[in-house]
């Protein structure tokens, strides 16, 4: 009732203005009446409150574009469903910052605009990072920064076991190092093989590092990757608890100081300094030698589809501001991310030599939804995590587990 009456009043006001020709006031009530020049931004960083650099940056970008920014931080696991529901109700935010594998899902739902439509410049972005947001030749967002996985090591544990971390360039060298560590009475490596997307994220560097492809889970290379993990658990180089470890609990195991290695992400750097022991970082080795492609983590800045396409101009300004070189540097430092452009990456390394290994890892990294997998990725990832859970818990051999997984994945992605 009230909305009807309000709508009627608005219609009346507009008609009156059309007749009287009061252009300036009708414009301000047209765009301002509903939104008040307010643009909404949703991000998955609820840890940042109003006083943080991140929120100040958002507000600043809004001021530069001449609008007010209304920001909401959601838990990252919540955000996908929130974004889908908002799109269903027709009240999507103007800017949505979302985990990169989700971009293809939202793009598939028709929720996101392409960067062409929005006229966002993506030319400076590293192609391997941008690929996670590209489906069918279209780009649906721009990475704000990236993180990935590498191996943290405990210097004291490696020294007493007589292992030189710099010499670990392939799987054989790593396994040999783990054996030495175990012989010296310490524990080898901890990772997260939990039955969720987090576990798949941790398995992929080994899977890809073996030369396997996600479209064929049970290839010889894929089986070799699972046999590597399985061998570590069976030989006691890795604890049985990896099956239930999240990346956080796996980190807590490493932080006890008993473990030689931890497969973990860029985001643990700050915590690494708090452990109280000397640590170092090496890239994850591939099977034959060299750096294995690890999956990229980190979010994309996207622009959900709006009914009023007139809003895109300001949205483009906001996104341009957030991803501009200076602001990207600030943001990525705050988030402990590696920048998505080479120029900013160099700036990061110049400021902090320690980030070099991470920049290398990010340059070798690969998006999970890349290779045009898009929404097929989640349907492959789930059978894959079921497979390594089955193998590591001893209920199936690596080959059998992956064979089952391939059957399931093939049926689901048909």
């Amino acid at each position, binding site marked *: 009732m009230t909305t009807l009456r309000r709508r009627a009043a608005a219609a009346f006001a507009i008609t009156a203005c059309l007749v009287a020709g009061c252009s300036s006031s009708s414009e301000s009530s047209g765009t301002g009446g509903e939104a008040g020049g307010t643009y909404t931004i949703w991000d998955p960083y609820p840890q940042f409150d109003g006083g943080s650099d991140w929120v100040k940056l958002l507000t600043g970008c809004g001021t530069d574009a001449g609008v007010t920014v209304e920001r909401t931080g959601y838990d990252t696991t919540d955000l996908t469903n929130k974004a*889908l529901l908002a*799109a*269903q109700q027709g009240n999507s935010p103007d800017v949505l910052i979302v985990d990169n594998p989700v971009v293809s899902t939202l793009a598939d*739902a028709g929720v996101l605009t392409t960067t062409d439509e929005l006229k966002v410049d993506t030319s400076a972005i590293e192609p391997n990072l941008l690929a996670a947001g590209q489906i069918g030749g279209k780009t649906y967002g721009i990475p704000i920064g990236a993180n990935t996985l590498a191996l943290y090591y405990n210097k004291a544990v490696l020294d007493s076991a007589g292992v030189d971390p710099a010499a670990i360039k392939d799987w054989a060298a790593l396994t040999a190092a783990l054996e030495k560590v175990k012989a010296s009475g310490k524990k080898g490596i901890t990772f997260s093989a939990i039955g969720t997307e987090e576990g798949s994220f941790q398995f992929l560097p080994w899977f890809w590092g073996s030369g396997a492809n996600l479209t064929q889970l049970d290839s010889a290379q894929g089986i070799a990757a699972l046999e590597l993990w399985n061998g570590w658990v069976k030989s006691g180089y890795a604890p049985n608890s990896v*099956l*239930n470890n999240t990346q956080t609990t796996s980190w807590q195991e490493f932080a006890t100081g008993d473990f030689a290695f931890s497969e973990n992400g860029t985001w643990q750097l700050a915590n690494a300094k708090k452990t109280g022991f000397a640590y170092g970082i090496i890239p994850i080795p591939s099977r034959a030698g060299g750096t294995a492609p690890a999956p990229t983590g980190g979010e994309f800045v996207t622009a959900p589809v709006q009914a009023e396409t007139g809003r895109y101009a300001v949205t483009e300004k906001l996104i341009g501001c957030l991803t501009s070189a200076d602001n990207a540097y600030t943001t990525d430092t705050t988030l402990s991310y590696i920048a998505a452009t080479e120029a900013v990456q160099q700036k990061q390394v110049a400021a902090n030599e320690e980030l070099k290994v991470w920049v290398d890892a990010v340059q070798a990294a690969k998006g999970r939804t890349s290779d045009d997998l898009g929404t097929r990725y989640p349907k492959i*990832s789930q059978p894959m995590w*079921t497979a390594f859970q089955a193998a*590591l*818990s001893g209920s199936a051999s690596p080959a059998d587990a992956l064979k089952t997984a391939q059957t399931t994945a093939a049926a689901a992605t048909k």
Partner: protein
Amino acid sequence: MAHDVMTRVPAPAPADAGARSPRRRKGGHWTAWAFLAPVVVYLVAFYAYPLYRNLDLSLRHYTVRSFVQGDAPFSGLDNYRTVFADPAFGPALLHTLVFTFVSIAFQFAIGLALAVFFAQNFRLSATLRALFLVPWLLPLIVSASTWTWMLNSDSGIVNAALELIHVDPVNWLTSPDWALTSVIIANIWIGIPFNLVVLYSGLQAIPADVYEAAAIDGATGWQRFWRITFPLLRPVSAITLLLGLVYTLKVFDIIWIMTKGGPADASTTFATWSYRLSFGNLLPEFGPGAAVGNLLILMALFFGLLYIRFQRRQSS
């Protein structure tokens, strides 16, 4: 106080009804509906509509695109067929049943034993009884996380204790043979206080003179339990078991926090499966997720009807 109100309210009612009856003939119909409206709106908005939506979700072929655009085609029982044909269906059903019935059996037996024990009102019994309520008072996330720590294969206290008595450590949460047992143990621990409290209050209602008479007739403690306590507690037991069933069928948080339904589906029940389908993946599958949820509702409904039948038989 409560007693006072209870007896006082019904008394004036007949007189009132008589006085008002002429007025009801005119606008009474609408007034009645106006009074009913809040309840009806509440029921429709929070019960009927969600149930209808869940049914609707399970009967349509949803993709993320059609979810957003709201034009998912009607697909009949396809989602149910998908769920039934899924290799995870059989194990999930078995786990759900084992989880529910084993949990209930132990919760009820231990709860009843404790209730009988505490009914004797010895010194400190109130304090001890309060202690048994602790699992109920803790937020589930806290107790489930604590269980996860205790049952950790490498650094958990349970395995440390086993080592002391020279028993090989058990991979409680990471072995397919033990994962379901572990979550059942945790769930039993959490469910005991509920059974204890309800059964204890049921015991209070059994008149003491029945026991006195039995004691004079020379009944042993065991006989008193099986011949008096157990039969007289039957109505309370029935409602306890029913509530326990419905509650245990849908247990999700403990399993999700402790094992995520793993390793490799070894502790997946319908509740965790439904969640994983709808929310646990990057690509939500609302249709099959809703279908599994509806199967859970049907199971709960079945036990509910069973209870009503039992109650009718009892009263007739």
